[in-house]
């Protein structure tokens, strides 16, 4: 029985083995399969290798591209830097010499109480500035003016050199100028470009009393004491109001020698203090002493002293200018006709409507013979508008009414066109 069982088992195993052998590939088949797999692996390996090579190539290209971009950026940066420096160098070189200027055309239509009319059109001022900077500390500034369009013999106008000075920064603390410069006094004497003030014509107080525009030859020392607190002191040529030639009075304005073969026997000493410590506010005072206001030509005259003070306030849209000036002339000559005191003042409120328009009114009084009891006072009322189509271009229209001591009243209107650059 045991033998039978073993036999049955053995036979079953053989059957099973033979059945298995029938479903399994042969060794040859297996070999073929293995070779196919091997080939596929080789292909994959080759593809991998190829991809690696391509990847490396791409990586190299990316690195090269990055490098190229970097180099391009550096090139652009260098190019831009060089271009800007070149532009700046050219600009700076060109800017060592600068040109500027201003001009104003006036139309006046006035009538006095006798019915006499004055209608005039006049290119009042054509001005060119030339400046040159020799180095950071030394510079030239000049102003050449043609008044009333035509200059020459029997013509109305004249060519005037109103400024031509060398300015030097002695140190970070001191500055000095020498030459022909505007006297540091008043509001419009130094800043009188038409776009900077109201009214077609400059105000009569500064014109007849200070007398603007007023320039002399000499030396001036300037500095700033503290924030917004500055000073100027000057020694210069002076006025000559002696009664000679075409001059018939001791009027201050007639004494301007304009540094044209000017008598310089007696000098003038000027000092100004100015405070601009708050935005929009300027307070200033000037004192000038002249040793002899006739340059020793008139023994009946002598020294003279000017005192001037003013305020300029611009807060928001509201503006206010106010000025007072007085001359005191020594000697019996000036005193005889009241010229020993020449004085005037004005007040000018204004309102800036917007960027383009502003309105103003001004009341002024001046008297070149205030030293006696005779009525010699002028007063004038002005009302007008400025239109700035550009901040450097202005059109002006104003009405004026003037009371004169001799000829009574006159009134009329003025139109102006002005520019600066």
């Amino acid at each position, binding site marked *: 029985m045991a033998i039978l069982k073993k036999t049955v088992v053995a036979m079953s195993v053989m059957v099973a083995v033979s059945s298995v052998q029938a479903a399994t590939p042969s060794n040859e088949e297996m070999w073929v399969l293995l070779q196919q797999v091997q080939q596929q692996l080789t292909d994959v390996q080759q593809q991998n290798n190829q991809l690696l090579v391509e990847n490396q190539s791409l990586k190299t290209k990316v690195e090269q591209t990055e490098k190229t971009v970097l180099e391009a950026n550096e090139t652009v940066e260098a190019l*831009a830097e060089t*271009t*800007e420096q070149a*532009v*700046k160098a050219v*600009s700076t070189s060109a*800017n060592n010499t*600068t040109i*500027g200027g201003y001009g104003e055309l006036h139309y006046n239509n006035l009538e006095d109480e006798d019915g006499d009319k004055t209608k005039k059109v006049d290119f009042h001022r054509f001005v060119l500035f030339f*400046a040159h*900077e020799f180095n*950071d500390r030394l*510079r030239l*500034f000049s102003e050449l003016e043609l008044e009333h369009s035509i200059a020459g013999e029997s013509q109305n106008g004249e060519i005037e050199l109103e400024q031509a000075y060398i*300015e030097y*920064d002695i*140190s*970070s*603390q*001191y*500055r000095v100028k020498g030459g022909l410069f505007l006297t540091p006094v008043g*509001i419009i004497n*130094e*800043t009188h470009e038409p776009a*900077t003030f109201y009214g077609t014509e400059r105000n009569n107080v500064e014109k007849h009393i200070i007398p603007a525009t007023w320039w002399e030859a000499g030396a001036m*020392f300037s*500095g*700033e*004491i*503290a*924030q*917004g607190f500055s*000073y100027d*002191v000057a020694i210069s040529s002076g006025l000559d109001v002696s009664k000679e030639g075409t001059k018939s009075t001791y009027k201050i304005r007639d004494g301007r020698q304009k540094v044209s073969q000017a008598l310089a026997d007696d000098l003038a*000493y*000027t*000092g100004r203090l100015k405070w*601009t*410590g*708050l*935005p*929009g*506010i*300027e307070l200033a005072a000037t*004192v*000038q*002493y002249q040793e002899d206001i006739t340059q020793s030509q008139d023994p009946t005259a002598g020294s003279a*002293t000017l*005192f001037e003070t003013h305020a*300029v306030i*611009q*807060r*928001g*849209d509201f503006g206010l200018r106010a000025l007072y000036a007085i001359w*005191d002339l020594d000697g019996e000559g000036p005193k005889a006709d009241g010229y020993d005191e020449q004085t005037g003042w004005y007040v000018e409120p204004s309102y800036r409507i917007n960027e383009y328009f502003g309105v103003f009114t001004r009341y002024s009084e001046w008297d070149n013979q205030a030293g006696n009891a005779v009525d010699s006072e002028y007063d004038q009322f002005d009302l007008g508008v400025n239109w700035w189509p550009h*901040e450097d271009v202005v059109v002006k229209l104003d009405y004026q009414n003037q009371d004169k001591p001799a000829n009574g009243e006159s009134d009329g209107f003025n139109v102006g066109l002005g520019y600066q650059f």
Partner: protein
Amino acid sequence: MSQYKDPLRVLIFMGLILSSFTVFARGVYQTDQDFLTEVFNNSVPKSKVVWMKADLASTVAELLGHKYAGLRIRYWRNEQRSAWILEEIGKEKPITFGIVVAEGKIENIKVLAFRESRGGEIRHPAFTQQFKLVQLDDMQLDRNIDGVSGATLSVRAMTVVARLALYLDKFTG
């Protein structure tokens, strides 16, 4: 008028006294680097540039009132603020301004270098503080800036660079 009889001595005395403690207007008040170090507390970010491409160049010209002379404008920015160093001519010479903008408003504006003969008063804090917290409103500053008498062009220069910095801060932000 007897009080004016001897003004020469007064003038000379006044000149000597005043000249002994004068502070002059022209010069470099702060270097660009010192300005940036101050603004960013010693951690000055790397500078960036904004190129004056066609549209931007046109807007910048409108803001300045003339074409910008350079090709680009350099600036410095961190999370809180941007800083700009800009030059603009007053009357004749370029004035260098340092401007700090935070949240679209001027945080600070300073004159770093002034080369004009007149108008140096614009560097004083009494004047520059008017710009504090000013922002752009339709390409204009949203408040009036009171000027300095006789320094109109220097004031104008500071006003236009303030506008430019505010615009560029928004443009690059």
